Structures are given as C-alpha cells and as structure tokens.
C-alpha cells in the first residue's frame, strides 16, 4: 500500500516493516518499548508536509477528538 505522498512511500514501507516485526515479536509478547520511533519520525514529517500542501491538516486536527463520539460510552475516545 502506498502513502498519500509518493515521496513518502519508501519511508512508509520502511516504517511498516519495522512496525510489523516489532508488533508481532515484541509488543504482543509484552515488550512495549517503541522501537520504530526514529523511522516513524521521518515518515511522519514527510506525510505532515503532504497533508499541509493538500490543505488537510485542519480537517484532521478537528476530527481527531471526535472519532467514535457517536458511540459515547468508553474511555478510549479521549
């Protein structure tokens, strides 16, 4: 799967590979050290720029706190 920005796709793939290895081998076995932080920061910065260029940043920031709000009930919605 590609990134929203073509220039970010290689970083996304690098992050996804790191994430999958970490998730299956470490996180699911109780180790919650965030091992993919370095590559994630690079990937995140790349996507951030694309979102700004596309004018999506505000839409995302506004929507984030409200995800799932129609279901009310739970603590995860913070």
């Amino acid at each position, binding site marked *: 799967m590609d990134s929203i920005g073509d220039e970010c796709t290689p970083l996304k793939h690098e992050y996804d590979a790191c994430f999958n290895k970490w998730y299956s081998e470490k996180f699911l076995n109780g180790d919650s050290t*965030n091992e993919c932080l370095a590559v994630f920061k690079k990937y995140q910065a790349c*996507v951030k720029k694309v979102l700004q260029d596309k004018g999506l940043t505000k839409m995302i920031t506004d929507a984030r706190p409200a995800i799932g709000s129609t279901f009310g009930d739970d603590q995860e919605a913070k």
Partner: protein
Amino acid sequence: MVKFYQQKYAYDYSWGTVSFAFMNRYPNPFATHVLTADTIDHRIDAKTGELHIVRLLRKTNSVPRWAKGIMRGNEAYILEEIVVDAQGNRMVAKTRNITHTRLMKVEEKQTLCADPADNSRTLCKNETSILSNIGYGLNSKIENFSLSRFSDNIAKSRKGMLYVLDLAHRKGLIRARVIADKQEQ
C-alpha cells in the same frame, strides 16, 4: 437522527494473528477502493502500555447516481484510531469520514477480543452509526442507501481480513505469537 447497526462474528485465528492482520488489511483484493493508508500517529501510553495508532485512509467514492450532484470530488478521507491492549488481548478500532461530512457522518467501531472460551478464536463486534443531515428530503434516502450497503461492506471487509489472515499465516509473519499461543495452551 443517528442510525446504529451492529454485527458480531468470530475468526478462527488467535487474537494476536487477527490484530496483526487488521493492521495490515490494506491492500487486499476486496478493498480496491482504498488508495492509500498512512499512519499519522504512533505512541505508547506510558501508564497503560496500550498502543495508540492513528491512520489516514484515502478512498475512491462510489456513490449512487442521485447523490453525484451533491457530492463534490471523487475521493474521501477516513480517519482511523486503533487502540491495542496486548495484556488484555483487546483491540478497538474506530473510523470516521472527514470529507463529505455535510452529507453524512459514518462511524465504525470494531472490537476484537480473544474468545475467553477458546484462545485460538477471536470475537469481533462491528458497530456502525450513520448520521445524515443534508435535508431536502434526502436523509432517509441516504440512510437507507447506507443501510443496504452496511452488510455488503462488512461482508467485504471480512473477506479482506480472511485473505490477509491467510497470507500472514502462510508467510509466517506472526510466528512469534503463534508459538507463544501454543505454549500457553
């Protein structure tokens, strides 16, 4: 007015496998409308140890002919928030559309839990809410259209999940957890 729908089913795979597949469910042949997927936030709650992921999905919009005039643009953006509690074997994923919100707001919440009676199985609960407030007498048309699409979409996303589950299983991507599951049994 908000309409709610709910469906429950089970996967014949362990929770670790299913949660892994959920994170990797795009691309798959049953979700060709999903064009891109990006993780825009990844953090671990220092207190609870829970993993919090936020993703942005870009999809093509297939709308009925009568809706074409009121929907601008062929693409839709969906925001997805996933919280994973590895200790509690529980994943909660919520999505909401962030474009075309004047037409309707669709939210989905999927809860994936290890089956307490059999940890080689995973229980899934899918909740959907649809809110339409465009007016012009179109609300019920929109909501009914969404309702008819609701079960179609769940069936499709389930097929997609099974495809990814099988792939992940065969590739041995989730070996570590599968071995751990076997040792526990």
